[in-house]
């Protein structure tokens, strides 16, 4: 079959129409879809670090939430050991009472300094001087051991034991003690 001029024109028209449709489909239908898809994927890829960060943040907090109650309990336990009221009011009687109940009479305590705590926010340190005018060494050492064991908020930072000139076997003791209290 031979193609005459009309046929050739028709084929040309058909081809042109086909290219036109392909172009239009691509330009007005497929390309916007592809762009849409690419931008959405891009957005999702970009949000991945944010997701990682958020999930990491939540996981970190969940990890801390495991230790949190224990830490709160420890703080509550420490706070429960600090009596209410001014330390100058409860400190000396408490110290005197403690030593008295452990066989060391006439222990007197006076507060000499107050130091803010940098590490322990909400707490401060009080410095006390405890004086025991007349005590035997062994009962004193026993009382000190008990004091150190039962009063975890107190720390003895220094002491002086001076033998009495008047009474053999008796000593005068000065203890430097620090303790933690709440602000």
């Amino acid at each position, binding site marked *: 079959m031979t193609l005459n001029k009309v046929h050739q024109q028709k084929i040309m028209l058909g081809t042109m129409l086909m290219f036109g449709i392909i172009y239009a489909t691509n330009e007005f239908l497929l390309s916007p879809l592809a762009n849409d898809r690419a931008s959405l994927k891009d957005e999702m890829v970009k949000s991945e670090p944010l997701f990682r960060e958020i999930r990491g943040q939540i996981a970190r907090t969940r990890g801390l939430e495991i230790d949190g109650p224990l830490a709160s309990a420890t703080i509550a336990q420490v706070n429960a050991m600090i009596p209410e009221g001014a330390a100058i009011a409860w400190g000396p009687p408490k110290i005197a009472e403690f030593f008295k109940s452990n066989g060391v009479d006439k222990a007197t305590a006076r507060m000499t300094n107050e130091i803010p705590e940098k590490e322990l926010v*909400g707490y401060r340190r009080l410095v006390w001087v405890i004086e025991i005018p007349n005590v035997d060494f062994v009962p004193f050492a026993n009382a000190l*051991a008990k004091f150190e*064991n039962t009063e*975890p908020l107190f720390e003895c930072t220094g002491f002086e034991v001076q033998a009495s000139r008047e009474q053999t076997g008796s000593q005068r003791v000065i203890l430097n003690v620090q303790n933690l209290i709440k602000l």
Partner: protein
Amino acid sequence: MALRINLYHEIQLARKQQRYDPLKISMICLGFAILCLAGWYVVRYAETNTVREQYAANQAELAKITPQSEKAKIDEAELTKTIQLSSALTKRIEGRFYWAPVMEIIGRVIPRNVQVARLSGDLATTETSRRVGMSIEGVAAGEHPRKVAEDIRLALIDAFGQKFTGVTASFRSLDDGTDRVKLDGVDVGTVLYSISLSFAITGADDATNSPKTAKQ
């Protein structure tokens, strides 16, 4: 013989040409191509829709977890503060220096022919280390009182060296005493001694010294 003449050949040709009309064929091809393109569009549209759904799910999740993250951030700061405070309190309590074991060593090391007239101790704390400095003064009696005093110094180094590190003990003064004393019925001489003792405290020392009830 009859002559057979096809009088319709022109009509047949026209029909044939109409059947194989290039425009018609190209229209069929075009229709097929449009169908393929439409199919392809549907496939791509479905893909895009899937991506859109994923994106929407992502955004929904983001909107859901962002407030959680904000809350977590606040909680984290609060919890960190609590844990740090608790840890610092525990460290402070467990890191205390206990003097009772020191007293116990002194009581064990000093023999009965030695009198301690003055005993003092101080805990020096710096940011990096803690050190205890002690002073022991008194009277030592014996046949060779200087040797008795020296034995005490060495015994102190030995006894404290078993528990602490960096133990040093030196005489600040060692003077012959004017008094003579009776020890087990024997008249012996005396010396007045003053020993300066110091040792370092490490975390391990604290742990070994701390009584079991320290955590109460």
